[in-house]
C-alpha cells in the first residue's frame, strides 16, 4: 500500500458552516427532503390539518356535541337548522344568539310548523350541558357551545325523532373515521405480507398470489360486499358487526397495497446493497427488515392513505343500504339512512348534512394521499 499525500484545503469552521448552509439541500436527510416536498403541496398540507382536526373532534365528540344524541324529543321533530342571529333588535352587532321556537299544528295542511318566538338565548362558549363520561375517565358536562335551558340549538336541524343532527354527525365521525383507519391497517397487514412474499420469492408463489389478486379485483366490489355483509347474522352485537364490516372492507382493500409492495420489493431486490447483504450471508428476514421495508414504507403509507376514502365510501354505502352498520350505532352511513326517501329529503333537506362530511373527508384524504405519493420519492424530479 502506498500512502497518497492529499492536501486538505484549509477551511475554517465558519467557512464550512457557510458552505453547508448554501448547499443545505444536498446534506438533508431523506426524511427532511420528503417533508420539504410535501410542504410544497399546499392543498395536501391543508388537507392533513383538516383531517387531524376531524379526528380531534371525533375523539372528543361529547365535548363538541351540543345535545345528547340519545335524547328523543317529540316536541322537535324535523326542525330546520336554527337561525343564528348576529344583530340585535337595535341593529347593532352583538354576541351570536338564537331565538326560541314553538311548535304549532297547521290545521289546513295538518303538518307541524315551527315559529320563532321573541325570547333570546345567547350561544355560550364552554357551556355546562348534559353530563357524559370524558373519554371514559371521569364525568363532565362541559361542552364547546350550548344554550341555556328553554332554547334549543340545532346547528344542522333535527331528525325524525327530534335528535340533533350536528351532534350525531360529530359522534358518527368516530365510527366512520375509525372504520377507514382500522380497515386500512388490516389491509396493510394483508397487503404488505402477501405483496412482500410475492415480490421477494417470485416464481410460483408470485404467480399464485397475483392470480388471487386478479380474481378478487375482477369481482365487482359492491355486490361482493353486499353478499358478505348480508351474511352477518342480525343478532350479533353492533360491536362485532362493526369489526366484521371492517374486516370485509379490508379483505378487498389489500389488493391495491399488495401490488404496490410487490413492485417496490421487486425493484429493491435488484439493488446492489441487497445483493451485497445476500452474499454476506444475511438471512431473508434480516434483508426484508433492514433493506426492503425501510425503502418501501413511504410508498406503502401513500398507497394506504389513498385507499382510506374507498373504505369510508363503502361503509357509508353499505350502511345506507341497511346491510352495514345499524342503529343504535351512529355512523355517517347510518345517519344517511334517514335520507332514503326522496320526499323526506324534499321536505327536510338538512338530513343530507352528513353527506357533506363524507365528501369533505374523502376529498381531504385524496389530496393528502396525492401529496404523500409525491413526497414518497423525494429524489424523483416532478414532471
Amino acid at each position: 500500500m502506498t500512502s497518497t499525500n492529499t492536501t486538505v484545503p484549509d477551511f475554517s469552521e465558519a467557512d464550512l458552516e457557510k458552505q453547508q448552509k448554501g448547499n443545505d439541500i444536498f446534506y438533508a436527510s431523506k426524511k427532511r427532503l420528503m417533508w420539504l416536498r410535501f410542504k410544497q403541496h399546499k392543498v395536501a398540507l391543508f388537507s392533513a390539518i383538516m383531517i387531524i382536526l376531524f379526528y380531534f373532534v371525533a375523539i372528543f365528540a361529547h365535548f363538541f356535541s351540543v345535545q345528547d344524541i340519545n335524547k328523543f324529543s317529540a316536541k322537535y321533530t324535523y326542525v330546520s337548522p336554527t337561525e343564528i342571529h348576529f344583530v340585535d333588535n337595535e341593529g347593532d352587532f352583538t354576541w351570536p344568539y338564537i331565538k326560541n321556537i314553538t311548535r304549532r299544528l297547521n290545521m289546513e295542511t295538518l303538518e307541524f310548523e315551527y315559529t320563532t318566538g321573541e325570547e333570546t338565548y345567547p350561544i355560550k362558549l364552554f357551556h355546562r350541558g348534559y353530563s357524559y363520561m370524558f373519554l371514559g375517565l371521569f364525568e363532565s358536562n362541559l361542552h364547546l357551545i350550548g344554550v341555556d335551558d328553554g332554547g334549543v340549538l340545532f346547528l344542522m336541524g333535527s331528525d325524525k325523532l327530534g335528535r340533533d343532527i350536528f351532534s350525531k354527525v360529530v359522534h358518527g365521525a368516530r365510527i366512520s373515521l375509525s372504520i377507514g383507519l382500522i380497515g386500512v391497517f388490516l389491509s396493510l397487514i394483508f397487503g404488505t405480507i402477501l405483496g412482500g412474499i410475492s415480490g421477494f420469492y417470485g416464481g410460483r408463489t408470485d404467480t399464485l398470489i397475483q392470480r388471487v389478486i386478479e380474481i378478487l379485483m375482477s369481482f365487482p366490489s359492491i355486490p361482493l360486499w353486499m353478499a358478505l355483509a348480508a351474511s352477518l347474522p342480525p343478532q350479533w352485537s353492533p360491536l362485532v358487526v362493526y369489526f366484521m364490516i371492517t374486516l370485509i372492507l379490508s379483505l378487498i382493500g389489500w389488493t391495491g397495497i399488495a401490488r404496490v409492495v410487490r413492485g417496490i420489493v421487486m425493484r429493491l431486490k435488484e439493488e446492489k446493497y441487497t445483493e451485497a447483504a445476500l452474499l454476506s450471508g444475511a438471512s431473508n428476514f434480516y434483508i426484508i427488515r433492514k433493506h426492503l421495508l425501510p425503502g418501501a414504507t413511504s410508498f406503502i403509507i401513500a398507497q394506504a392513505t389513498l385507499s382510506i376514502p374507498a373504505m369510508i365510501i363503502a361503509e357509508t354505502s353499505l350502511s345506507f343500504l341497511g346491510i352495514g352498520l345499524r342503529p343504535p350505532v351512529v355512523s355517517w352511513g347510518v345517519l344517511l339512512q334517514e335520507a332514503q326517501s326522496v320526499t323526506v329529503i324534499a321536505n327536510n333537506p338538512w338530513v343530507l348534512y352528513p353527506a357533506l362530511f363524507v365528501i369533505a373527508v374523502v376529498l381531504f384524504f385524496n389530496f393528502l394521499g396525492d401529496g404523500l405519493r409525491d413526497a414518497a420519492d423525494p429524489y424523483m424530479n416532478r414532471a
Partner: protein
Amino acid sequence: MLQYILRRCLISIPTLIIISIVSFILIQLPPGDFVDAYISERLIVDGSINDVDALRASIQAELGISDSMIVNYFNWISGFPKGDFGYSFQHQKPVSDLIWGKLGLTFLITFVTLVFTLITAFITGIISAMKPYTLFDYIVSFFGFLGLAVPNFLLALLLMYLSLDWFGTPFSGLFSPEYLNAPWSMDKLWDALSHIWIPVIVVGTAGTASQIRIMRATMMDELHKPYVDTARSKGLPTYKVILKYPVRHAVTPLASTIGWQLPELVSGSAIVAIVLSLPTTGPYLLQALQGQDMYLAGTFLMMLAVLTIIGTLLSDIILALLDPRIRLS
C-alpha cells in the same frame, strides 16, 4: 394475434371456475338457509307438526337441494352449460327465467356508461392537456376531484331531489309507465335510452374523473416530445398534429383502464339501481341475498363477475390491437 386471443381466453377459464366456487360459498355463509326459514314459518302456522326432520327432508326433496354444500354446488354448476341455473325459492321460478332481463339492462347501463366515460375523457383530456392551467382545465380538475369524492348513491339521491325540485316528479325507474310491462320493442328500447342518462351520469362520474386525469397526464407528456415539434415544423395543421401522433400514444393507457373500470361500473350501477329503483341486477341481488335465495343470488353474483371478466378480455384484445408491443411480448 389469434394466438394471443386464444391464450387470453384459456386463462380466464380457471378464473371463472374459482369465481363460481367463491360465489357459491359466499351465499352459503349466512347461518341457516331458506329451508330453515320456511320450516319456522310452517311451524308457526301449523303447531301440530312435531317431526321437523321429516318436514325438512320433504322440503329439501321438493326443492331439489341437499345438506351437503358440495352436492348443491355440483348440481348448480352442472346446469350451467345447459342454461339451467337452478330454482329461485323466493320467486318460485327457474332462475334462468328471472335473470336475463335484469342482466341485459345492467349490461346496457354499463356499456353506455363505459362509452360515455371514454368519449368524455378522450375529448376533455385532450383539451385540458392542450390548454393546461386555464380556467377550463381548473374547472375540469375541480369536477374531477368532486366526482371522485361523492359516493354514487349520494349523487343519485341528489339528482332525484333536484328532479323533484325542478320537474315536480322524482326520477326513478328506467321506463315510462306505458312501457313498464310491455314486451321488448324498438319503442321500449328508445324509451329506456331516454331515461338512461341519469344512471349513466351517476355511475360514470367517478370513472370519467380518473380517466380524464390519465388522458391529460399522458397527453401532457407526449405534447413536449420532439416529434410533435417536427410535425408542427412540417406545417401540419394543429388538429392533424395532435390527432395523428400524441393521441395515438395517449389512447393506450386510456384503453387499459377499461379492465379495472368495468368491475367498478358494474358495482356502481348495482347501488345506484337500488337507490333509483331501476329494474337491473342490484335490487334483485340485494333481495335475493337478504332472503337467502341461494341459487338466484349465486347466479347473479357469478354473472356479474362473468360480465366483468368478458369485459376485461375484450379490453385486453383492444389493447393488443392498439399496441403491438403487448401482443408480441
